[in-house]
């Protein structure tokens, strides 16, 4: 039988899915034990137990100076920046993308501009943003917006252009104005795509957020990681990394559920 036609049974499939995770954990434990056996004070690969203890401490113990739990503060600060940035990008790219997709004038005027804009490496703009917007929240949010809006705009305008021309013509024969076509034909059909564009962009959004926080911030997940790096506090860094991964995973899962619930007409198309 050909390899492309061999399908694992369900239990085997689950095992295969877990395999890479188990492998990486085993590799880590082995490496950590070897290093700790040679030097019990080694900080590079802390034992799993150490990480667990550190994590428990980070999630529950308050900071002596401020009286707050730093990890939660970092989480709230970062999520706020992330949601603001991604939300603004979503609104911007939705409106620009719909305009490009529906209006020939906007298409002629903006397509080239957006294409060039998406080539600008956003991180190279970070110093400019700090100079223009200062070191506060604005520059971090703007970095995310600049970083992901061009991609999302191109994605959404393409999705509008993909709507069969028959549908647009049909709507016109029913008397729909440009506005009604945008509102009742195009918008409902790009909203699912908006959610998937957001899901695709979240990875980059996190990247830009952490980069901006690493350079200049006084609170935030990225800020903390780069702060404790000076003390080689691998247990804290690893806890934060796992925590960020978990947050990203949960956000992605929620978005996926939302689009399944909100767009039943898509069927299996999601």
């Amino acid at each position, binding site marked *: 039988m050909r390899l492309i036609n061999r399908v694992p049974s369900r239990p085997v499939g689950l095992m295969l899915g877990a395999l890479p995770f188990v492998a990486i954990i085993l590799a880590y434990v082995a490496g950590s034990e070897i290093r700790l056996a040679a030097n019990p004070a080694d900080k590079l690969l802390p034992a799993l137990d150490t990480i667990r203890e550190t994590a428990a401490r980070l999630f529950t113990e308050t900071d002596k100076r401020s009286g707050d739990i730093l990890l939660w503060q970092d989480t709230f600060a970062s999520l706020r920046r992330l949601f603001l940035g991604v939300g603004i990008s979503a609104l911007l790219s939705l409106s620009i993308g719909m305009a490009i997709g529906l209006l020939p004038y906007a298409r002629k005027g903006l397509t080239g501009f957006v294409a060039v804009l998406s080539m600008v490496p956003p991180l190279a703009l970070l110093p400019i943003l700090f100079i223009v917007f200062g070191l506060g929240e604005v520059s971090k949010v703007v970095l995310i917006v600049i970083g992901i809006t061009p991609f999302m705009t191109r994605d959404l305008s393409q999705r509008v252009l993909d709507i069969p021309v028959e549908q647009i*013509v049909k709507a016109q024969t029913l008397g729909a104005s440009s506005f009604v076509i945008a509102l009742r034909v195009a918008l409902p059909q790009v909203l699912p795509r908006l959610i998937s564009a957001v899901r695709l962009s979240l990875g980059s959004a996190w990247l830009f957020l952490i980069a901006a926080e690493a350079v200049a911030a006084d609170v935030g997940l990225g800020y903390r990681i780069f702060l404790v790096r000076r003390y080689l506090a691998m247990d804290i860094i690893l806890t934060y990394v796992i925590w960020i991964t978990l947050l990203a995973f949960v956000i992605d899962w929620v978005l996926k559920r939302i689009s399944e619930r909100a767009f039943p007409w898509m069927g299996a198309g999601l």
Partner: protein
Amino acid sequence: MSFVTVRDVWQSYDGRPILERVNLDVDEGEFVSIVGASGCGKSTFLRLLLAQEQPTRGAIRIDGGHRAREPGRERGVVFQRYSVFPHMTVRDNIVAGEAFDTHWGRFRGAKLTAARERADAILDRIGLSHVAQNYPATLSGGMQQRLAIGQALAARPRILLLDEPFGALDPGTRIQMHDFLTELRAETPMTVFMVTHDLGEGFKLGDRVLVFDKPRWDPQDPAAFGATITYDFDARQGGIPFQGLLDKYPSLRAAE
């Protein structure tokens, strides 16, 4: 004057003529079938009738009105595919036939209730009331085309354009759709243009059958000339005209 007048219409793309010198007069209520070889410009002609495109030369008028510059409510259309809105339920698709003409494109309150009742009546008529709450993707091809026709009719167009509406259906469903369309026309007379690849279908449904073909042909350059209407058959009475002539004019019988 005839209801739909097509006067000396030419259409070319990139300087290549597709249609040339098309002239046509159609009376209100006539059913016109259009046949012709693939790629000869039947859909192009329909797009011109729909005002989705402007002819390079010539004019198309409905009821002596202005040349239309874009599609509008007086010309309804059903394409072979993609004619209904996938994100609306079957019933909302019908309601859209009325609601899209409003400022926000939707009805609220009492108007919505009334529009839904009218939509339900149409759904009853086209035999889709049992799937009123479904999305089009769950419907069979024949049901989707029936929905598309119902939706187009909900907007009460003056002419209805059909581009191979039953092309993707199996022969059995196709015959059902023929009966459906014939019944609809018996109830509400309308002017219909239908492109088809099925000659039998064209003669069965149409009052006239137009054949598009190239009258001039350059063997060195097959794309040099466009197509036009080369035959205009009277398709009433099974495609054999004048067979009822004597019944209609009994006085002629005396001369026999």
